[in-house]
């Protein structure tokens, strides 16, 4: 019955968002869009946290998503070139994988062309999933602070690489613009609304999907792993493979979020994606939201973004401080995140 309520909440939220979209002032529209893509990323973080893991490097996939969205053709170039580089026979398997990957990218790109919103998001998710699938092999062995640190390291390596790649604009990054959606050409003005609507729908879809997943056998197993890996192994299930799976899912979500970010903002750069401070923000929002419910991440993202914007506008000299204090207050008084407030109220009611 809890499931029903969540479903209800989400659906009504979606309806409301789509309904008020046209009448919202632009800044509000972009604000909501930001909240939506942040929320999607945090959904993934929440899943990891359910499994007992916290990633300090989720920016990695956020960044990959954004860059894939902005530069799918360049990406294909890059990887193809790299694959060609590995000419020796013993690299054959690697080359095979890479080709398969670029093949997939091209496939994604063909129907609507590179600067199409759908292409962007799919490319973003795809790249993130592929990379996560590989790194996951390694990361699934790690727990706690070491998982966090290793993921951080990977994200920072990507950061370093991007800063070195002047083809991708180095630290300045590069701009991009959404020209069409599913092949339908969009004017600049319509593009914004399209992105907004699409973000809302995507966020909704991700939330529902994750909600179902969490209430499935595997979802329960995730909590079981967090509680007691040993017992899970002793009941005949593979902890590592489930962690790997969940890691890939969270990466996919981060990738989608990143792609939507690129589309919404119209600009990507390493500093605001792959750098550890961004991953830190994600961790913060996750703690802020709590893992209680799939709607929580969006709530958390909303509050986080609101605090940051207003702090930046009204106390430009001490916005970091404001953010820090908010953080402390939440951690102190809402240990299980904002969602716990609602739960408690329901209990008392």
């Amino acid at each position: 019955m809890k499931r029903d309520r969540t479903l209800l909440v989400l659906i009504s939220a979606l309806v409301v968002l789509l309904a008020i979209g046209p009448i919202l002032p632009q800044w509000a529209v972009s604000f909501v869009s930001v909240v939506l893509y942040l929320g999607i990323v945090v959904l993934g973080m929440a899943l990891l946290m359910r499994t007992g893991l916290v990633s300090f490097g989720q920016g990695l996939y956020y960044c990959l998503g954004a860059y894939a969205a902005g530069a799918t053709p360049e990406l294909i170039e890059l990887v193809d070139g790299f694959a060609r580089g590995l000419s020796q026979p013993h690299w054959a398997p690697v080359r095979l994988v890479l080709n398969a990957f670029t093949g997939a990218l091209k496939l994604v790109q063909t129907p609507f062309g590179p600067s199409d919103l759908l292409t962007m998001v799919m490319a973003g998710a795809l790249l993130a999933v592929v990379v996560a699938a590989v790194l996951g092999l390694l990361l699934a062995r790690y727990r706690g602070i070491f998982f966090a640190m290793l993921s951080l390291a990977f994200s920072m390596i990507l950061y370093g690489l991007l800063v070195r790649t002047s083809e991708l604009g180095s630290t300045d990054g590069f701009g991009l613009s959404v020209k069409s959606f599913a092949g339908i050409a969009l004017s600049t003005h319509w593009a914004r609304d399209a992105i907004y609507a699409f973000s809302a729908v995507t966020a909704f879809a991700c939330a529902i999907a994750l909600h179902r997943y969490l209430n499935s056998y595997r979802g329960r197993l995730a909590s079981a792993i967090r509680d007691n890996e040993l017992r899970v192994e002793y009941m005949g299930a593979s902890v590592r493979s489930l962690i790997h799976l969940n890691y890939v899912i969270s990466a996919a979500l981060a990738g989608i979020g990143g792609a939507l970010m690129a589309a919404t903002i119209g600009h990507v750069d390493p500093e605001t994606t792959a750098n550890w401070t961004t991953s830190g923000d994600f961790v913060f929002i996750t703690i802020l939201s709590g893992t209680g419910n799939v709607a929580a991440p969006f709530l958390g993202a909303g509050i986080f973004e609101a605090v940051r914007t207003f702090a930046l506008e009204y106390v430009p000299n001490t916005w970091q401080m404001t953010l820090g204090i908010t953080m402390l207050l939440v951690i102190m008084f809402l240990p299980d995140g904002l969602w716990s407030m609602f739960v408690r109220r329901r209990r008392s009611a």
Partner: protein
Amino acid sequence: MFVIAVGLTLIYGVMKILNVAHGSMYALGAYTASTFAGYWLAHGHAPYASYAVLVAAAVLVGLVAGPVIERGLLRFMYGRDEVVLVLITYAVFLILEDVTKLVFGVDPILVAEPYGMLGNFQIGDLVYPVYSLVLVVVAVLAGVALALALNHTRQGKILRAVIHDREMSMALGINVSRVYFVTFTIGAMLAALGGALTAPTTSVQLGIGAEVIVLAFAIVVIGGLGSLSGAALGALIVGLVRSAAVHYRPEVELFSVYMVMALVLIVRPKGLFAAAEARKI
């Protein structure tokens, strides 16, 4: 760098807190030290005493900031999840960033005298300032002192006991809260000292805290969280790798450290010097 890392690893070892605010301690140390030293020299006091001023500033920061944070905030948080604790210190870090800005302003502070005063020495055809040598010596001394303290004084033994097994030492009636308090203060002091001693060699500007903390994390993780010798080795490795990168592959310098960290973790999942804890079932 080593001094800072030691402080970090000490705090982690004892309190199981990966302390992001450590970076702010470093920054505060640097700012306070350079401000004091600047003032000292500006008023024409004995220039050589400025070293004492630097250290004094560090101790001051440690003694003020450390207790405030530990008593005022952290002690309410013990027993929370490690990651939450990291976040708490991150929050403190953010707050202190702005505090530093409000107190010391945004202009880089440049107090170079202590750096130049000692003259230089030559190795091959490369010239080094004596001051860097001093830094090395201080680092080594700090390390040795700490090691001795840990191994040969009663408090040190208590500390090690807590590092080894918190519950047990509580059961044995060790006042863990007090141990935490002392540890955090010492840790803060070390960080501030690191900052204070680095201050003269560079220009103290906003954001140095963030710079340092990430590097320190890398070092500590490479060495194995909570291990002093690990921190030493980690600092050494990071230093060597960076300069090697600078000399041979400047373009990878930016992330060489993380490369190393990743590699080390891949080979030794818990860092180089980490004690594996067995689990009774």
